């Protein structure tokens, strides 16, 4: 396969992240309107709406694309509601991109919005003895942070990572997000403050685990022809979208599973699932980690950000702590990671998060990321992983 044609990011917009408990579509409408204004596109021109589903908002959340289309005022657009857990936004983006590349539409809205409960993300109520996501709480009391903590502890025992290393990820991201008007947490923290917060799942402290947030993000995508017709000669371009699933056997334990696949009969693939997510995007874009100016990675926990450095090829396995300690991944360093402030400053609004990553890359590549700009950014990668085997990686170039 040759590299696909790029599609244009005509506009981006977000509703700030926070916790207000309003209906999710109210946030989504604000993000969409901001993206339309940024793009100079009227809602009446949008031919396709792809939205990330939200599962905690009843059936309007399951049909998020039509809910949001109705909230914006029915315009006859075709719709697709996409669920891929944390990767939902990338799946929606891919639906819009492929429709544009197929010549079936010129301009599309990609949007995700969520409103979230307090505390741990828990499964929906009711007894469901055939649902692993329900059973892991019932039989093991294994919360999401427990899984993040397994990865964190492994870094400590295998690579010598320290609690201070993990805390430094939070300190870096808090510094990055301080000037981000869309971030929920905009306050610097110290290593001491992180380590003084209560341990939730050893070795991770409260300040190292991402919160759940309300928020919304939207992107207006268009064909390059449409962009040119609108007088946008050099838009930010989507060069690759990876929505890969694992290859058997997936030998890293992942929530909500009780066990990994078995490698008894088939040897594990060369790349782990997380490695394969970015690899597929690099291959599609014809770019590599050395071409990146910045990356937005899914820091569900501080330690997980370090895993991602290795998974996206910024360094070899076991070397992420050194990258962090050397300041390479801070703004001003060799390859800034999470200049937006990441989940550390946002908290997670599941269906919006992968789209929010694309918003940040777009602002960075346009030179509009005031207070957190990575100077001269030309290429960015956004990566995340959704429950149940959903990969998500997007490469944008200026």
């Amino acid at each position, binding site marked *: 396969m040759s590299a696909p044609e790029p599609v244009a990011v005509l506009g981006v917009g977000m509703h700030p992240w926070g916790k207000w408990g309003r209906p999710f579509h109210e946030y989504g409408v604000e993000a969409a309107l901001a993206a339309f204004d940024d793009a100079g596109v009227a809602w009446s021109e949008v031919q396709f709406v792809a939205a990330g589903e939200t599962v905690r908002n009843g059936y309007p959340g399951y049909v998020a694309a039509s809910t949001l289309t109705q909230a914006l005022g029915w315009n006859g657009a075709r719709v697709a509601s996409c669920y891929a857990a944390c990767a939902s936004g990338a799946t929606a983006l891919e639906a819009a991109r492929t429709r544009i590349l197929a010549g079936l539409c010129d301009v599309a809205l990609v949007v995700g919005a969520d409103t979230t409960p307090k505390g741990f993300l828990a499964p929906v109520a009711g007894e469901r003895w055939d649902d692993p996501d329900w059973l892991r709480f*019932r039989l093991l009391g*294994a919360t999401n942070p*427990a899984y993040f903590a397994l990865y964190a*502890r492994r870094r400590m025992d295998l690579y010598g990572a320290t609690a201070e290393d993990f805390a430094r990820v939070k300190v870096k991201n808090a510094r990055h997000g301080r000037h981000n008007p869309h971030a929920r947490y905009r306050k610097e923290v110290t290593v001491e403050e992180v380590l003084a917060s209560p341990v939730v799942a*050893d070795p991770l402290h409260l300040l190292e685990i991402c919160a759940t947030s309300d928020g919304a993000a939207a992107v207006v995508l268009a064909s390059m022809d449409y962009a040119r017709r609108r007088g946008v000669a050099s838009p930010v371009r989507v060069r690759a979208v990876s929505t890969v699933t694992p290859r058997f056997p997936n030998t890293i334990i992942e929530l909500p599973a009780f*066990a990994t696949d078995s490698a008894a*009969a088939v040897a594990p693939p060369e790349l782990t699932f997380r490695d394969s997510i970015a690899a597929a995007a690099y291959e599609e874009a014809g770019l590599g980690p050395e071409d990146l100016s910045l990356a937005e990675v899914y820091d569900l926990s501080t330690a997980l950000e370090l895993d991602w450095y290795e998974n996206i090829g910024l360094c070899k396995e076991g070397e992420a702590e050194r990258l962090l300690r050397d300041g390479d991944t801070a703004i001003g360093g060799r390859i800034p990671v999470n200049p937006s402030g990441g989940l550390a400053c946002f908290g997670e609004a599941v269906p919006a998060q992968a789209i929010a990553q694309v918003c940040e890359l777009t602002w960075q590549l346009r030179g509009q990321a005031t207070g957190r700009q990575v100077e001269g950014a030309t290429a960015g990668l956004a990566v995340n992983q959704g429950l149940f085997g959903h990969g998500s990686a997007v490469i944008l170039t200026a």
Partner: protein
Amino acid sequence: MAASVPAIEGWFTTGDEPRLLGSRCTDCGTVTFPRASGLCRNPGCRGRELVAHELARVGTVWSYTDARYQPPPPFVPASEPFEPFALAAVELAEDGLVVLGQVAAGFGVEDLRVGMRVELVVETLHELDGVPQLIWRWRPLGEVAA
């Protein structure tokens, strides 16, 4: 006290030498936990005969953590107030997989290390209507595998 019962049917055996119950494909030998049915999960295999398979009782710690806060429902706390417990992901070499479980009562993260050998035990998870509900757990054996 009422006789104890497994918290879930068919996932493990009880007794002195309990075992996790998974399945094994008679065509390719792929193991799953918990038990699977239907088509073998190996994409290169069309086997449909997934027979009951007892997993190894002893493994090595892949990683570990604990729960310092009471998990949300459907978790049922065993005590009031909530007592933290540890979790371990354990590699079972001959079965080729890693299985998650709580760590045996009385052991915490300070007793664990990646690579440490652990064995399977069955203990009470919580009581429902006065009936103890049993669950598999990992008990540290102290040694770190070479």
